[in-house]
């Protein structure tokens, strides 16, 4: 006897589509989420709560990660995140980090599904083709457009992905006048200015309001419900179906398996810190890449002595992030004609422009290589964050009137446009998740140790793209452009660790994201991705989770529906 047909661990972009699809198909679904259940009534444009303190993540003294980075001596140095100021939690609440995303949505391209075949092996990288093709996922990309709510405008360009629909279901979000500057420049230079689709409603739908254009989006929870978080777009509807329960503040610490190898229950700490147990027929893990691998590694059982789904020691391997660089252009108001200066001061609408002219590269300088996306946007408006960067002059701390003059000049004399580049973070043997052998969290469980080795090819591509971004901002009239590339991983753009594939010895999941060696266990966050594409991962995670949900319904619908006995 089970308590639910399906138990979903984690409620973000990987969990929401499963909960909605299965609940609407008649399965009884439980979603366990370690964070609280916040709603639109809890989200305000409050930099302190949002971004200066860890309101939406864990107390790093109690729950942290150990990050292992290459040091200057070419060895490795490991530090716990409470001691390093970096944080790999990305939003512990119902809906997960999708509550806080910027919602720049791009599909992967057909070649992204067969990177090995298209570009060949790369020394030191574990590049692999996906076990599915773009065509398998395309219907689900389209489904996400409808179900999550994506606003945009399709234009023809050389790297446009094949589409089953002509355009997005929602018109583009309001565009900032700077978008037109950008379009003009691209026309002159023979480039293709792409209107970026956003997972943000441009008009009300499904009980959600349209975007209110406050100018504060990324890193903030959405107070209108326009942002297509898993919570606002999917989980509310799953609960409304009557077949889905969400239990917040429940931290799953172990998945119990029986002598046959099947998962039989999830052990979790409830809001009072008491260990509880819930039984289910199917289990879907979607805790975001690092914590998903950690949970599987922690979940040893009689048939899984090295952790669930880890018979061939693949869990945690080939963790990936998004490789990239960034730059900021300073546009002095005094250097612009008054009309343009006035335009630049407008706050609220989005720039929403990207270039993918170098998504694939084939030239003398770089040879044939996979490139990436360059996204153009305003510098984030958080004032304290911006002010803090002004306190240093070279390596010297500033204060007094020199600091105040600099601050005033920075805030009032210029506008700031940014670019961010997205490139593959090539999977490699130095980027993975293991259990730390010494440090434990407040639950007395080993914390995840994240090794973040980056392949040199990624830096080369990132530098190439960043130089293009630099040139664009310069050509737009920036007084100066500061830019750089980094080997540090963006903690909010993680994937891999449980890659899917045909070969059980080289992958954790099968093509439908079911564990090769655990018949009732699925993983549906970004962990499945063997390679990440050169775009943010979220749309693909949503789409794949909808795809897997359909597979579960097809395979288990008749045998499981309505069998459970609620607690």
């Amino acid at each position, binding site marked *: 006897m089970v308590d639910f047909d399906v138990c979903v661990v984690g409620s973000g972009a990987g969990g929401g589509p499963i909960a909605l699809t299965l609940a609407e198909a008649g399965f009884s679904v439980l979603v366990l989420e370690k964070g*609280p259940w*916040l709603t639109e*009534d*809890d989200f*305000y*444009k*409050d*930099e*302190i*709560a949002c*971004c*200066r*303190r*860890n*309101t939406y993540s864990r*107390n790093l*003294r109690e729950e942290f990660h150990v990050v292992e980075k290459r040091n200057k001596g070419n060895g490795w140095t490991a530090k716990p995140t*409470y*001691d*390093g*100021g970096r*944080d790999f939690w990305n939003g512990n609440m119902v809906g997960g980090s999708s509550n806080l*995303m*910027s919602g720049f949505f791009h599909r992967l391209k057909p070649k992204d599904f067969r990177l090995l075949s298209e570009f060949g092996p790369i020394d030191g990288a574990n590049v692999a083709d996906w076990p599915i093709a773009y065509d398998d996922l395309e219907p689900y990309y389209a489904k996400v457009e409808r179900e999550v709510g994506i606003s945009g405008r399709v234009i023809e360009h050389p790297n446009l992905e094949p589409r089953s629909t002509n355009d997005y279901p929602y018109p583009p979000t309001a565009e900032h006048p700077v978008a037109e500057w950008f379009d003009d420049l691209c026309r002159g230079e023979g480039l293709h200015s792409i209107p970026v689709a956003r997972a943000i409603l441009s008009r009300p739908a499904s009980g959600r309001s349209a975007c*209110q254009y*406050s*100018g*504060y989006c*990324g*890193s*903030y929870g959405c*107070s209108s419900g326009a942002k297509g978080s898993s919570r606002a777009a999917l989980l509310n509807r799953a609960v409304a179906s009557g077949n889905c329960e969400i239990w917040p503040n429940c931290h799953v610490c172990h998945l119990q398996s029986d002598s046959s190898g099947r998962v039989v229950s999830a052990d979790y700490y409830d809001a009072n810190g008491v260990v509880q147990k819930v039984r289910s027929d199917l289990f879907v893990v979607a805790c975001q890449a690092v914590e998903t691998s950690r949970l599987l590694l922690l979940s040893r059982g009689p048939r899984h002595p090295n952790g669930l789904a880890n018979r061939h020691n693949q869990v945690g391997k080939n963790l990936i992030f*998004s490789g*990239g660089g960034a730059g900021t252009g300073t546009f002095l108001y005094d250097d612009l004609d008054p009309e343009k200066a006035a335009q630049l001061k407008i*706050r609220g609408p989005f720039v929403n422009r990207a270039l993918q002219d170098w998504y694939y590269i084939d030239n003398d300088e770089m040879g044939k290589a996979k490139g990436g996306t360059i*996204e153009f946007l305003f510098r*984030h*408006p*958080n*004032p*304290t*964050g911006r*002010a*803090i960067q002004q*306190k240093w002059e070279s390596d*010297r*701390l500033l*204060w*007094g009137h020199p*600091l*105040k003059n600099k601050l*005033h000049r920075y*805030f*009032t004399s210029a506008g700031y446009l940014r670019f*961010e580049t*997205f490139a593959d973070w090539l999977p490699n043997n130095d980027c993975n998740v293991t259990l730390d052998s010494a440090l434990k969290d407040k639950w007395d469980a080993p914390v995840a140790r994240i090794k973040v080795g980056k392949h040199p090819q990624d830096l080369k591509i990132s530098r190439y793209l960043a130089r293009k971004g630099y040139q664009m901002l310069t050509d737009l009239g920036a007084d100066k452009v500061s830019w750089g590339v980094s080997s540090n991983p*963006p903690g*909010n*753009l993680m994937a891999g660790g449980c890659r899917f594939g045909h070969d059980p010895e080289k992958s954790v999941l099968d093509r439908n994201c079911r564990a090769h060696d655990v018949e009732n266990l699925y993983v549906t966050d970004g962990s499945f991705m063997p390679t990440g594409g050169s775009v*943010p991962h979220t749309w693909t995670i949503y789409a794949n989770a909808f795809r897997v949900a359909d597979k579960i319904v097809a395979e288990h619908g008749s045998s499981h529906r309505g069998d459970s006995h609620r607690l």
Partner: protein
Amino acid sequence: MSLSTSHLDRRKFLIRGGATVAVVTALAGLPLALRKEMTKETSFVFFSSQQQQTLTALQEHLFPKGPDSPGATDIGAAAYLEWAITVPESDPDSRNTIVNGIGRLQDATIERFDTVFTQLEFMQKERLLRYLADETRWGRVWLSMVLTYIFEALLSDPVYGGNPDQVGWRWLEHQPGFPRPPTDKVYGKL
């Protein structure tokens, strides 16, 4: 890619033993009148009167009032900092860093000038702080952190006690986002 959500400086540095002990030791060599002045009661709950006066003088030096711009006192920097390091969810490391830094500043002042920081002339303060920022690791970390809290007082929502009447936002022509937080939905209450 979203913006970095870096928190307050967490860099480790050697924290001396109890700040209170250090301050009492340092005060022992000062004139009685000065000691009385420094230990009088104030409205601050966490900081002692002496700590509060030192902190206020320091913040005003780091962020002075200008003819058309607010200073540390105008933006409520001292009261904001006290809230920031005493709210239950605050990071104990940051709290210790701030408190111990005040003690170390007093030690350094007395050692060099045989008086307390509040009694120093402008250039004496400037030379001392410049030395601490440029030549000592703890001073650099601590002063950087004090500045960060000043920026928070200047630019966070007034609901937190700094930035009264949006004085910081108005000075820097900053347009806040909306909706703004009500008092029952702020950090520590969510």
